[in-house]
């Protein structure tokens, strides 16, 4: 056999019974249990509701969804695969392959909404719009620049968490807004499935980021932290303008921006950092919060006497075999 053949690196066969990091199995299990396809959601029940939106509202909705499709496409084809190259454990690579595929499911599901509710020419116009929209293109470029192979593993993870936990939310706001007004409620159900997945993705990649940070010197950690906050500022700047362009006509811009601040802070927390925006700037419209977490008793606070004194989860399977009582 020739030397060149012998020297080729062969990956280790993944052994799920020998874990180096318990989080890999925990997240693998969460993601696989949560698996779904858009065909499970009865989108056609939204046809009547769709017809009651004004042409302007329809155009906005389709455009927002093409913007979200672009982010999912980037994460599916570039983001998750590039993180695989930096994986510390073979199980991490397997989890990232699940993340990559689910991003393809998300991107595909917007087209299910389109084919159910919209005219082909409306959709084609919106995809053209997204490929030409300066803000959408600018934020995509900022993320893709970090995904380049030359970027450091930790910078890639920062970019990935910001995409998963921050950049989607200027778009997610709209279906939550419609849902709070009893519009497009099935589409909102589908979006909530995507939101749930992205929350796990942001949490997991943020967790791996924190593991990586532990290996660095204090000076190196500070450098990465400065980079992260700098990138957040740059992305926020673009998001603010994108938001104004989309939502000014509906008078919703300030409401959306509060939602962006709230999610920016959560993205930073996924990386183990403190939030950037003060709490006063993160007061999200309660109707949007209720649309995000229906049935979760939004205002429960025993200390201040609001809500019921005992919150009992609704969709619960509490009988875990580990309980002894």
């Amino acid at each position, binding site marked *: 056999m020739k030397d060149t053949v012998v020297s080729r690196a062969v990956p280790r066969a993944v052994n799920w019974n020998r874990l180096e990091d318990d989080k890999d199995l925990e997240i693998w299990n969460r993601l696989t249990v949560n698996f779904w396809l858009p065909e499970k959601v009865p989108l056609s029940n939204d046809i009547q509701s769709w017809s009651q939106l004004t042409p302007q509202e329809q155009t906005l909705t389709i455009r927002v969804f093409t913007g979200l499709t672009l982010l999912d496409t980037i994460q599916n084809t570039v983001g998750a695969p590039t993180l695989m190259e930096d994986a510390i454990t073979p199980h991490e690579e397997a989890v990232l392959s699940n993340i990559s595929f689910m991003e393809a499911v998300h991107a595909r599901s917007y087209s299910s909404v389109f084919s159910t509710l919209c005219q082909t020419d409306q959709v084609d116009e919106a995809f053209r719009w997204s490929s030409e929209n300066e803000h959408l293109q600018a934020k995509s470029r900022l993320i893709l620049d970090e995904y380049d192979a030359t970027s450091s593993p930790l910078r890639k993870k920062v970019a990935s968490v910001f995409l998963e936990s921050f950049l989607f939310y200027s778009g997610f706001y709209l279906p939550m807004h419609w849902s709070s007004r009893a519009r497009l409620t099935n589409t909102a159900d589908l979006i909530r499935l995507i939101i*749930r997945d992205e929350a796990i993705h942001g949490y997991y990649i*943020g967790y791996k980021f*924190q593991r990586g940070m532990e290996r660095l010197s204090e000076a190196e950690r500070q450098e990465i932290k400065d980079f992260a906050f700098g990138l957040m500022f740059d992305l926020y700047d673009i998001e603010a303008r994108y938001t104004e362009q989309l939502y000014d006509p509906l008078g919703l811009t300030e409401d959306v921006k509060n939602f962006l601040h709230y999610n920016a802070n959560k993205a930073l927390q996924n990386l*183990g950092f403190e939030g950037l925006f003060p709490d006063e700037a993160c007061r999200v419209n309660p109707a949007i919060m209720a649309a995000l977490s229906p049935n979760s008793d939004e205002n429960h606070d025993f200390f201040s006497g609001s809500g019921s004194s*005992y919150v009992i989860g609704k969709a619960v399977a509490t009988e875990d075999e580990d*309980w002894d009582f």
Partner: protein
Amino acid sequence: MSGLVFFSSRSGNTRRFVEKLDLAADRIPIDETEAFPDIRAPYVLICPTYADAHGRGAVHRQVIRFLNAPERRALLRGVIAGGNRNFGATFAQAGGVIARKCNVPVLYRFELAGTDTDIARVKAGLETFWGQECSIPA
């Protein structure tokens, strides 16, 4: 004022929440081979939520093992649960599950590592809560 006990996995959100409270707190170890803290006084438990889409597995196995001991369970007075509203109806569900199993109130729910508002509310709330506890004759 009485005790706090918390669990936090290596992602550290709940640990950061507890650190910001700046109150003495005992940690339930992540590693199953490590000993649980020796609890002798009433306490409030702070823990995150791990529920899947069906609400299963909301409470971490180490928290369940900690509460399985009747002497530790008897001292539990309330639960504060972490979570993420993006998980919809299962947000902070560990709190509801523990409340029902142990017959104690869910005192508060927060997201990830909490906000400044959460910290202020929980600090003030705990102070009032323990004040009421102590005024009840044994």
